[in-house]
C-alpha cells in the first residue's frame, strides 16, 4: 500500500466526540481510573523517597520500583486501552498494543538490572525530567480540563497513553537507568503519534506531546554530553 500518499487525517477513522466517549467509558467502565489513581499515588510516593536521598531500603529501591511500576502501566495500557478499547475503532490499535507491551517488558527488564552509578555532570537534564513528570502527573490533566475536556475523557498517568509516555520520558531523565537508549523510542514515537492524532481531532493541546518529546530528546542528549569547561570547549561522550 502506498502509505506515503496518506495524510494523518486519512488514518484516523473516528471523530473527537467518539474518542472522548471511548476514553470516558475506558476510565469509568474499563478500570482506567482504578489504575490511574493508585499508579499516580505510588509514583509520587516513590519519587519523594527517591528525591529524599535517604538510605533505607525503599529509598534505595525506588528507581527500580518506579521503572517496574511504569512498565506495568505500559503493559496495562497495551492490553486494556489499545487491545480492548481502541481496537474497536482503529485497525492499527493492536500494532500500538504490541508497541506498548514491548515497552513495558523492556522497562521491567531495566528495573531488574542494577542501576549505573549516577553521573553528577549536567544536572539540567534532570530538571527537565522532573518538569516532564510534573506535566505528566498534573499538568496535562489540568490543561485538558481547562480547555473544556470532560473530566471522564481525560487521560492520566498509568492509564492514559500520552501522560504515561511523557512521565516515562521524565523518569528516564531523572533515574539512573540501564537500557535507557532502548527505552526512549517508543515513548517518543507515541508522543509524535499523539500530537498528530490531537491535530486531526482539533485538540487545542495537540502540540503538548510533541513539545514534551522534543524537550525529552534534548534532555537525553544533554545527559549524555559532558559539559564544556575552560580548557575544552568541545563536547565528548560521557561514556554511558
Amino acid at each position, binding site marked *: 500500500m502506498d502509505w506515503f500518499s496518506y495524510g494523518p487525517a486519512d488514518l484516523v*477513522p473516528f*471523530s473527537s466526540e*467518539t474518542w472522548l466517549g471511548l476514553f470516558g467509558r475506558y476510565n469509568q467502565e474499563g478500570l482506567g481510573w482504578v489504575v490511574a489513581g493508585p499508579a499516580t499515588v505510588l509514583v509520587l510516593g516513590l519519587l519523594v523517597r527517591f528525591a529524599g536521598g535517604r538510605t533505607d531500603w525503599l529509598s534505595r529501591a525506588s528507581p527500580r520500583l518506579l521503572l517496574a511500576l511504569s512498565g506495568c502501566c505500559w503493559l496495562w495500557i497495551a492490553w486494556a486501552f489499545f487491545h480492548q478499547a481502541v481496537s474497536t475503532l482503529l485497525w492499527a490499535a493492536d500494532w500500538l498494543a504490541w508497541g506498548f507491551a514491548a515497552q513495558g517488558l523492556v522497562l521491567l527488564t531495566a528495573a531488574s538490572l542494577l542501576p549505573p552509578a549516577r553521573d553528577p555532570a549536567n544536572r539540567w537534564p534532570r530538571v527537565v525530567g522532573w518538569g516532564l513528570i510534573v506535566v505528566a502527573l498534573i499538568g496535562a490533566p489540568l490543561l485538558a480540563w481547562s480547555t473544556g475536556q470532560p473530566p471522564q475523557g481525560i487521560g492520566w498517568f498509568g492509564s492514559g497513553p500520552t501522560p504515561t509516555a511523557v512521565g516515562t520520558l521524565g523518569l528516564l531523565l531523572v533515574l539512573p537507568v540501564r537500557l535507557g537508549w532502548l527505552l526512549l523510542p517508543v515513548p517518543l514515537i507515541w508522543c509524535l503519534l499523539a500530537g498528530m492524532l490531537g491535530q486531526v481531532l482539533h485538540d487545542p493541546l495537540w502540540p503538548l506531546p510533541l513539545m514534551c518529546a522534543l524537550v525529552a530528546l534534548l534532555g537525553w542528549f544533554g545527559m549524555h554530553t559532558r559539559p564544556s569547561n575552560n580548557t575544552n570547549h568541545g563536547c565528548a561522550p560521557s561514556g554511558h
Partner: protein
Amino acid sequence: MSRFDHNRRRFLRVSGGLIAAGLAAPITGARGDRRVGGPLTKPIPSSGQRLPAIGMGTWITFNIGEDPDAIAVRRQVLDAFFAAGGGMIDSSPMYGSAEAVLGRTLPADALQRGLFSATKVWTGDGDAGPAEIDASRALWRLPRFDLLQIHNLLAWEAHLDTLMDMRAQGSLRYIGVTTSHGRRHRELERIMADRPIDFVQLTYNVVDREAEDRLLPLAHERGIAVIANRPFRRGALPQRAAGRPLPGWGREIGCDTWPQALLTFIVSHPAVTCAIPATSRVDHMRENMAAARGPLPDAALRERIAADFAAL
C-alpha cells in the same frame, strides 16, 4: 466465461441500460430520473437498475464503538435516510466499528426499504479476501452484498479474481474499485479501461474536479457507475459556506442550503451515479436527502455554482 463473452454481454446490458435511461445521448445531455416529488435516481449502466443519487457513507460517522447513546442516534439517522428514499450505504473494513454498528442499526426491513449494500475488501493478501468478505457480511447481518469494491486498489488483481468468481456464481451483484483524495488515477484509469468492473468510487466535489478530465468520461464510455466520495471534503466545504446565503440560482434547482447545492452539483454530472455524504446527525441527513429534488443544473449553471463557491 471468457473476457470477450463478458464484454459482449456487458455491451448489450450497458447499451440497453443507457437506451432505457435515455442516456445514450452525449454526456452533456444525460440526466437522471425521479418520481414526482421523489428522490433522484440514476441507472447503474451495467444492469439498468436505478439507484437513489444521494447515498450514505459511514467513514468516521458510524465508527462509534460500543457507545449506546451514539448507536441510538445512528439508528435515527438510518431511519431518516430510508424514510427519505435513500438506498445506497457504503462502508469498509477499514472504518473500525462502522460495519458492526451498521449491522446493529439497520432497520429489520432495510432490504425491503431499498437497501443497496456496498462495502469493500481491504487486505493486502489476496487469499485473505474471502474471509474478510465473510466477516463483513456477518457484521452487516446480510445474506449477501450488492456491491463489493476493492479498497484503494489494494491487491486489486488478486481481489478482482475473487469478486469476479463471486459475481459469476451469483453471490454478488456488482464489482467496484475505489480510490480517494485523487490518488492513483492513472492506475484506476487502466483498470477501468481493461477490466469488467461495474462501479468505480472516486473523490469528486465542487472543488476536487480532476476526475472530470478523464475518469468520468471514461466511466461513461465504458458503462461504469460512479460513486462520488468526499462530497463535502470531510465537512470542510459546508463549513466554508456556513452562514453564507445561497445565490438566487438555488431556487432554480430546488435547493435551500449550500450543502444541498454541493450535492446537487455532484450528482448533476451525467457520469456520476450517486454521492455518499456521511453524517451523524438526523437534521443533516434530512437536509442531504432533500438535495437533487429539483431540476438539475445544466453545464453553465454547474460552472456558476463552482465559481460562486470558490468566491466564498
